[in-house]
């Protein structure tokens, strides 16, 4: 578990299946993600399959009361870069909780997994998230019909996140 001032980060467990689906099947929150059916058994099976992998990390972000408030995943580990995705936060979370959850996941990728760079894609119409990633030092390195492809170095991220962390 990684512990911060506002949130903790822990590995996902099968008991989290319902929470994950509550986010992934929320029409508004998941409009930029692949469609997921509200199927608890399938979600539990997905988590069990994930648990056997050694090249992916699926996190639950908890508030300091231990209540799950978000999900985040690291996957597609390349020679010099890791990919982030499946970032969903419950409605009503504070900006500090959101920022720190994101910070702890990136810190895990940079410090624990020893990468100096990350990559990810964002739907072109997801303007708020695009703005957020640019504020955090990410750069567009390409695009597909649907997505912008981003890269962000550890150095750039740490330089930009500094102003927001308290």
């Amino acid at each position, binding site marked *: 578990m990684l512990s911060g001032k506002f949130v903790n980060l822990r590995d996902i467990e099968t008991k989290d299946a319902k929470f994950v689906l509550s986010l992934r099947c929320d029409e508004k929150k998941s409009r930029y993600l692949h469609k997921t059916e509200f199927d608890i058994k399938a979600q539990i099976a997905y988590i069990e399959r994930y648990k056997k992998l050694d090249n992916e990390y699926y996190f639950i972000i908890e508030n300091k009361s231990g209540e799950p408030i978000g999900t985040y995943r690291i996957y597609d580990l390349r020679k010099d870069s890791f990919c982030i995705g499946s970032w969903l936060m419950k*409605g009503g979370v*504070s*900006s*500090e909780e959101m*920022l720190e959850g994101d910070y702890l996941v990136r810190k895990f990728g940079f410090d624990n997994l020893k990468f100096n760079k990350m990559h990810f894609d964002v739907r072109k119409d997801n303007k708020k998230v695009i703005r957020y990633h640019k*504020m955090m030092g990410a750069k567009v390195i390409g695009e597909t019909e649907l997505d912008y492809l981003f890269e962000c170095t550890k150095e750039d991220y740490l330089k930009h996140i500094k102003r*927001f962390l*308290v």
Partner: protein
Amino acid sequence: MKREKFLEKIKDILQYKGDKDLTYNSNLIDLDEWDSLSIISTVAFLDSEFGKKVTVSDLQNIDTIEDLARIAGV
């Protein structure tokens, strides 16, 4: 920055697509769009455009767009 432009920038940060027109008296707390991402973007906007250093917690309990304009000095 003029007040009209300021309001446009806030609408853009919020990605506001509601039915009601946003005005300086619009209550941010009542808007779904005033979420954690919008608050973070507003912190950056106030800093980069007006040199005003605020934290996300400063903005968490702010009421109206007028309150933001007051911070910016618009």
